[in-house]
């Protein structure tokens, strides 16, 4: 009798210490519930659909996670996605080269990141305000650049493939997401840069005293993050087949909600990519599930909000239990 009790205790203990426990539970529970309502949810086609649609948010989420870990944030990615889409399509139209168009789009992202980084480190403007300003500048700017959407006059195959192509059975956006995810997983967890990110966000003074060039690190993180968001923009313009100045609205909130649901802290020093991945997918599953179940679409936001609150609450309880286990 005593033995099974301790085994149960050990399992509970291990579960409580598993940081992504609540997220995985929520994911599995939601999936099961929706599948009961409509088994189409769990079909191969729908799973691919969910992953492909999440790929843009996840790719941008990788960058956002790194930024939040370092203690910063970027609210301009929605407007950036629109601008990148318009520029990419326009450049391909004019140069008949997909590569040039994609490079132009990514370059726009990197440039935006550089400016965001400089505004934060040199002008010492808080990144929340700074990137909101950038969001407005980019959104206004894209309409000045092009008031109407940029249609596809080039019909390049390579361009089509980015968002709509497959490698075997795997859609290319999912492949891109997987590659970038794995690369940055190594960067965040195993590289010097990753270690410095956590230190900078966790305690900037301690990081400075340890010789970390905090300003340079932050600028670099902004650049990488915006470039990743630009990548998401390239995937989007390929899937939409036109550069829409009015696209990407609410994208930054979608990404940030997923990242925070995944356990990354708004105050810096904490966050994981796996949490971000699961968080974004949970939110996507909710939106997808509501349509698959044929419910009123207005519920999408309501359910997402409820899940966010419940998940964070449960995770807080788990953290308290975890602290009790660890401090003794």
């Amino acid at each position: 009798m005593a033995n099974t009790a301790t085994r149960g205790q050990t399992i509970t203990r291990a579960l409580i210490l598993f940081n992504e426990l609540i997220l995985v539970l929520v994911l599995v529970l939601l999936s099961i519930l929706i599948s009961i309502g409509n088994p189409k949810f769990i079909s191969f086609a729908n799973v691919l659909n969910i992953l492909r649609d999440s790929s843009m948010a996840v790719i941008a989420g990788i960058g956002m996670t790194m930024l939040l870990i370092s203690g910063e944030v970027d609210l301009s990615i929605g407007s950036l996605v629109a601008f990148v889409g318009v520029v990419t399509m326009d450049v391909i139209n004019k140069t008949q080269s997909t590569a040039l168009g994609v490079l132009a789009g990514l370059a726009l992202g990197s440039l935006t990141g550089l400016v965001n980084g400089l505004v934060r480190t040199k002008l010492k403007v808080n990144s929340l305000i700074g990137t909101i300003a950038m969001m407005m500048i980019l959104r206004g700017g894209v309409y000045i650049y092009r008031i109407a959407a940029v249609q596809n006059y080039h019909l390049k195959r390579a361009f089509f493939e980015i968002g709509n192509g497959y490698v075997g059975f795997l859609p290319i956006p999912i492949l891109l997401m997987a590659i970038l995810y794995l690369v940055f997983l190594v960067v965040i967890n195993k590289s010097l840069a990753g270690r410095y990110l956590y230190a900078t966000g966790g305690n900037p003074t301690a990081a400075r005293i340890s010789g970390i060039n905090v300003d340079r690190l932050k600028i670099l993180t902004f650049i990488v993050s915006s470039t990743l968001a630009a990548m998401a923009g390239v995937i989007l313009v390929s899937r939409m087949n036109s550069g829409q100045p009015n696209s990407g609205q609410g994208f930054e909130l979608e990404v940030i909600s997923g990242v925070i649901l995944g356990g990354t802290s708004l105050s810096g020093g904490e966050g994981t990519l796996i949490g971000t991945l699961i968080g974004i997918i949970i939110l996507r599953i909710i939106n997808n599930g509501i349509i698959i179940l044929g419910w009123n679409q207005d519920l999408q936001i309501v359910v997402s909000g409820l899940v966010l609150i419940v998940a964070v609450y449960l995770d807080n309880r788990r953290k308290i239990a975890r602290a009790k286990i660890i401090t003794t």
Partner: protein
Amino acid sequence: MKKCLTILLVVLLLVVFTTTLAFAQAKKPKRVGWVGNYMMHEWYQSLQKGMKARAAELGIELEVADANLDMAKQVAFAEDFMAKGVDVLIISPVQQEGAEGIVKRAKAEGIPLIIEASAVKGMTTLVAICDYDCGYKGGVATGKYVKAKLGGKARILAVDLPALRPCILRVDGFYDGIRTIIPDAVMVHRIDGQGLKDKALQVATDALTKDPNVNVLYGCNDDSALGALQAYKAAGLDTKKVAVCGTGGEGNAFIVAMKEGGPYVVEAAMFPEAVGYECINMAVKLFNKEKVPEHWVTPTLALTPSTWNKYYSLAGEVRTINWKAVNAIKRESKCSKY
């Protein structure tokens, strides 16, 4: 015989001359002010083109202000114009209730006021399309296409924008219209795409996963229809087995789509340029204190790949409207549904 013909010709010429002269002699307002709702939108860009063209034609000075979705700004601009002394005021209301104040002020100042797009209580006249009838025409044309080319059964995916009543009317109209040709047409999905192409793509993808068995895609605006089409293509479904109908024709997107020769076969066009054109015409009428109906309907028509170029021509990225053809379109005297 020749003499009769010559006399006839002279009389004809005289009639034409006097009527044009009469029209030209009709009093024209010197200045017209327009406070627009949201100039960044393609619809209003095109509308503005039409308005400016007609004003230039008639030698009327046109001033344009953009409220940019801000009701308070709109009131301020309207009052500015009235103070400056415009002869006629046109507004595209940001909010129908909020604009009632402007209506009262204009009446008090004795300045004729034209409302564009959505009705305001107490207004003199509204220049706008009939959303329901526009959708209806699109539905009828789509129905005919489906009957002829797609086997006669219609299963519809409609991308709506339930937050705006005009959009709901368009989708309702479309559905009623298509059922006059195909009575057992089924609305399989009616989803909210927020009028945006990327959102429409997202929700249509989900809907098609739930049930991919559709052969008609309808959008309450062109972006919605095109987003749904992208989703359809991405789902690997056969584009030869689907018909796409968009609404509005505010930009070049639909022309490009039709030129491609793909499934985009009907455009329930709303001719924004014509709306602007008619606003100026209405300004002249009001200035001359003519009696006008409460709702002056502007033309809508279902365009197809073989007919769109009668009304529009596209050179590079600039499109030009064919005024003669558009002005000749028969308009409803009032809408079937509001």
